[in-house]
């Protein structure tokens, strides 16, 4: 069976980063959940910090090259995306948003996505539902019902791992129930001229 590709996008800025810690836990839990369903999976992590300057350049030039291009292609070709951001001023970080601004508009349409965030206070928990979900609704992604927020107290124990496992199980169910992702390339299969003329 073709291994499914799970791409984890992490927008943490410090090293080590609690956002990356949460992202890795979600990635590992999703791979384990798929494995238990008999579906092999590969997990790739995209650290947005490494692409910070390239993302700013892409905003200005309109194109992306090199490692950023590879990261965007990985996300666009993934069977599922796990998107994790720190909560900054009540919302996803600017770096996180910039990555999804630069990503091609239809890249995540119909694609399973798990949203998660780290926050300096549990009072930011709703950023997930008030900011992250509308963003991925715009991108027409299939966001799983459980989102995971990790506030400072969550790292001290409690039910974080329960929520991580529940979200991962929901994502694994979506991925296991679908055919592996296949992207059509407009350069390989262009719209014929007769169709272009009819569309006018």
């Amino acid at each position: 069976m073709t291994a499914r590709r799970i791409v984890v996008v992490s927008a943490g800025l410090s090293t080590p980063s609690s956002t990356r810690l949460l992202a890795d836990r979600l990635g590992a839990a999703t791979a384990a959940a798929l494995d238990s369903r008999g579906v092999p999976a590969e997990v790739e992590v995209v650290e947005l910090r490494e692409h910070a300057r390239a993302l700013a350049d892409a905003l200005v030039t309109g194109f992306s090259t090199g490692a950023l291009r590879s990261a965007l292609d990985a996300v666009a070709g993934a069977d599922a995306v796990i998107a994790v951001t720190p909560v900054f001023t009540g919302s996803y970080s600017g770096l996180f948003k910039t990555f999804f601004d630069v990503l091609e508009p239809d890249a995540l349409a119909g694609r399973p996505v798990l949203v998660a965030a780290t926050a300096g206070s549990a009072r930011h928990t709703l950023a997930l539902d008030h900011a992250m979900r509308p963003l991925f609704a715009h991108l027409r992604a299939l966001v799983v019902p459980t989102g995971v927020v990790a506030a400072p107290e969550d790292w001290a124990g409690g039910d974080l791992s329960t929520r991580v496992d529940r979200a991962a199980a929901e994502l694994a169910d979506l991925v296991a129930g679908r055919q592996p992702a296949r992207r059509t390339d407009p350069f390989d299969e262009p719209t014929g001229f007769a169709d272009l003329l009819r569309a006018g």
Partner: protein
Amino acid sequence: MQFGVFSVGDVTPDPTTGRTPTEAERIKAMVAIALKAEEVGLDVFATGEHHNPPFVPSSPTTLLGHLAGRTTSLLLSTATTLITTNDPVKIAEDYAMLQHLADGRVDLMLGRGNTGPVYPWFGQDIRDGLALAVQNYALLHRLWREEDVDWQGRFRTPLQGFTSTPRPLDGRPPFVWHASIRSPEIAEQAAYYGDGFFHNNIFWPSSHVRRMVELYRRRFEHHGHGPAAHAIVGLGGQVFMRKNSQDAVREFRPYFDVAPVYGHGPSLEEFMAQTPLTVGSPQQVIDRTLSFRDYAGDYQRQLFLIDHAGLPLTTVLEQLDLLGEEVVPVLRKEFAALRPAGVPEEPPTHPSLVAAGTAAVTR
């Protein structure tokens, strides 16, 4: 192979002096650049078309008509003529008129324009951009080839028994290029008609340009116009030269750093690595330009952008001297030596279309 320059016609302050040319100065500078292009032995001058500040060339056939009267061999073209917001009837008339005045030294490059607010100023909507390009050109193509045209479509009033005048010179419409940076649909359109495809080859990486050109070539063959290698391809390119490459970099950097479109982004060195921009010696420009055929195949027209971002006219004219004296003569020889037999050396021109007879104009 044809070599030339294309101008956006931007009015941009010179960042080294803070001085902004007047519109009159910029328009006269475009004329001076075109005249110099002919003087130094280049083949083509192409003007942009824009309807918003800070650009001056809103009326390309006025400028090109003036140039027709002041030049003898220069081919007059556009980069690009807006097929979306111009009435195709007016394009048919304006460029046929220009063709007569210029004794056939005319072709044109069609593009869509990417500035949303411009469309409604001309009664259109940017969301219809592709449909406008397809439908308007289908009408333009007929108007140059048929009299008494009956036509009905979405974007303009219907036509009954309409004949656009003057008719194309010698019954041969000007050769048409279709230009697009990233829309495969436009490459398909160019291929369908057997027209030329032009990629601006300035703002995007060569890996992307390669895909657009490959698609056009493949579909040109699919639509029955001949082998893919014989399709008519044009490329842009952006250069700044001094005899000593370090002088070129030092002089161009302040213009690059704040240039419209890509300024305040990647460094000059990064942008040179990522895109076809070449800042250096004439030999470096020769080497880089020859490398374009590695990803675009043997092509027929090379246009250089040399007059944007506030560069003063005297500097631009010096660039033309270098192009004419040191760069283009070598490129002509080298490209010709590399070109396999059977691949067209030049795009169709008025004399070649006349020579080819009616077969060239009826499909």
